[in-house]
Each structure stands twice: as C-alpha cells, then as structure tokens.
C-alpha cells in the first residue's frame, strides 16, 4: 500500500464531474458575493462622483474610487484564483474518498469483503469511512459464520450418508452435498482474493 499517498498534480481532478460541478457553482456564487461587496464599497463614491454638483466633492470621490479600484481589482482576481485552488483541493479531499468508496462498494457487490477503505492524510469523510469499514467488518463476520454453518451442514450430511440405507435418499443427499461443496469452493475463492485498498 505504499502508493496510497502518491498524490500527483494530475490526480487533483480525481472525479472530474463532481469536482467541476462543485467548483463552477461555488465560483459563480463567489463571483456574485464579490460583485455585491464591491458594489457596496464603491456605491457611495460613485454616487457622489456622478450626482454631486460640487467639483471638490466629485474630485474627492473620484480619488477614493481610483484608490479603491486600484486595490479591489487585483485583490478580486487573487481571491478568485485562491478560491479556485482551495475548491480544487477541498473537492479533491472529498472526491478521493468517494472514489475509494465506489470501488469498495463495487468489490462488495462482487462478494469481496476483504477490502477496506483507507483514507489519506487530510482526507474528509473519516466518520463515513469508519462506518463503511465497520459495515464490511460486520458483513465479513456474518459471512464467516454462514461459511462455518455451511461446513457444519456438509459434515452432518456426510456423516448421515454412512447410516442411511435408502439408495434414493442417499443419491439425493450426495447431489445436495455436491452442490454445497461447489458453493463452499466459491465462498473460499471469494475470501481468498485480497482486495486492493488504493484510492
């Protein structure tokens, strides 16, 4: 599992669809927030600039506006870029575990209960991860007890073969035993496959 922390730049878009959706929506909201904030800051000066009859008042407002504009434009762009980068990393920390969850669910669907979800340092959804691992652990135990029960039934049936005299019943039990042993092989096969736990 030494490749778990192998986080490269190209992996930042680990789940493009979801990440892109979250980032774009957040950016639009961020933009609206910036527009409203900038508008609220600049409105008094703009109002004075365009509606005052006094040149000195207009001049003061114009100077204020120029100073604010000089600072607001670059800070807005920087904020926007920083917000984008933050969103990229944040969604990566959510989508990374989600990808892991999805792979794990698929493995569980295939009957592989050996896989566990392992999160990287800094990943979100730790509680959910623990719940899923607990669920797999529980399922695994149940599965094991079923397998044990299965073994016991096979043992009982094999034991009964020695005492049963009726050929028809014997034949039926043998068929049943064959089926049960096949199932046992399947279960053993699924248990033996060690799942990967990569992200």
């Amino acid at each position, binding site marked *: 599992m030494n490749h778990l922390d192998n986080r490269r730049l190209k992996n930042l878009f680990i789940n493009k669809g*979801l990440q892109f*959706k979250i980032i774009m929506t957040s950016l*639009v909201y961020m*933009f609206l927030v910036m527009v409203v904030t900038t508008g609220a800051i600049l409105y008094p000066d703009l109002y004075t600039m*365009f509606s005052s009859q006094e040149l000195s008042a*207009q*001049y003061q407002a*114009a100077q204020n*506006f*120029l100073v604010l504009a000089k600072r607001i434009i670059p800070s807005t762009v920087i904020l926007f870029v920083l917000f984008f980068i933050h969103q990229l990393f944040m969604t990566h920390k959510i989508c990374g575990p989600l990808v892991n969850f999805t792979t794990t669910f698929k493995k569980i669907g295939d009957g592989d209960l050996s896989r566990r979800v392992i999160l990287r340092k800094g990943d979100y959804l730790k509680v959910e991860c623990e719940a899923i691992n607990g669920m797999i652990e529980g399922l695994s135990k149940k599965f094991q007890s079923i397998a044990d029960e299965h073994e016991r039934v096979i043992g009982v049936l094999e034991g009964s073969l020695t005492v049963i005299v009726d050929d028809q019943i014997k034949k039926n039990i043998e068929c049943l035993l064959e089926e049960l042993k096949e199932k046992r092989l399947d279960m053993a096969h699924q248990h033996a496959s060690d799942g990967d736990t990569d992200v």
Partner: protein
Amino acid sequence: MDNKGVRTTAFVRKDAWIKKKRKKGFQDGDEKKGLTLTELVLIISVIVVFFVGGAVFFKVTSKSAYDITAKHDLQKFADFQDYYYKLNNRCIGEQGQSIRNDGVPSDLPIENYTVSEGVFITIIAGDPVNPNDPDNPYVFQAKHEKSDKVYEYNFQSGKMMER
C-alpha cells in the same frame, strides 16, 4: 406489511430521470461527466459576462474619475491664476508652458503647487500681462494622461469647457 423505508416515489423519479437522459442521447458512462455542455457553457458565459462587464464598468468609471480629476485641477489652477493676478497684476507662466505630473518634467514650476497624478495643464494662448484681452484671452487646457478628454479654461470669460 411494514412499508417503512421503502421509497417507491424516489425510484419512480429516478426512472423518469434516466429515461429523460437517455432521450437526450446520454449513455450510462456520461453520468460521471457531471455537467452537460449546455450547463458548462452557461456557467462559463456567466463568469465571462461578469468579468467583461466588470472590466468595462471599471474602465468607463475610471475614465470619468480621471476627467473629474483633470477638471478639478484646471479649476484649481484657474483659481490660483486669478489670485496671482490680483496680487501681481499678471498671470503666471507663458504660452506653451505646462505644469505636469505625468512623468514628463514640468517647465512651469510653481512653489508649493502641484497637479494630481497623471494630469498636465498647458497654457495654450494669451498674454500673462493682459489675460483679459478679448482678442487674445489667456487660455489653458488640462488633460489626464489616461483619458482622451481635454478641458479648457478661458481666463477672460471665466468659463470651462470640454474640447
């Protein structure tokens, strides 16, 4: 029968949603793409429109601010000339001279007086000794380096106009 936890409606809606998507030509794998092309174009358009709108707004408003600055400095310069004329019976500076704060050296240095950043005022006509001559009035112009508008002040009429 206990029907708790069975959300039949949700499944019906999901089916309807899948059918709707299939109708539009989506495949199962496309769900991973998240945003449709239309949504993507819409979002990018909104951001671009906001950015372009913001840029245009700031450009236009900044130009107005520069014009106000030039106008204000011209008015101040006119007031200063008027004061100087009343004290010395002549105006300061000669035709062609300018006082500036746009990086170019000023050839009309006045102590304790400067114009705003980017503004330059040039005396374009008139005699400083006789600034109120109706045939050759004392006239100066102001302009901000980042604006195209030129403001002109006629000392004889005391009026400012846009050129």
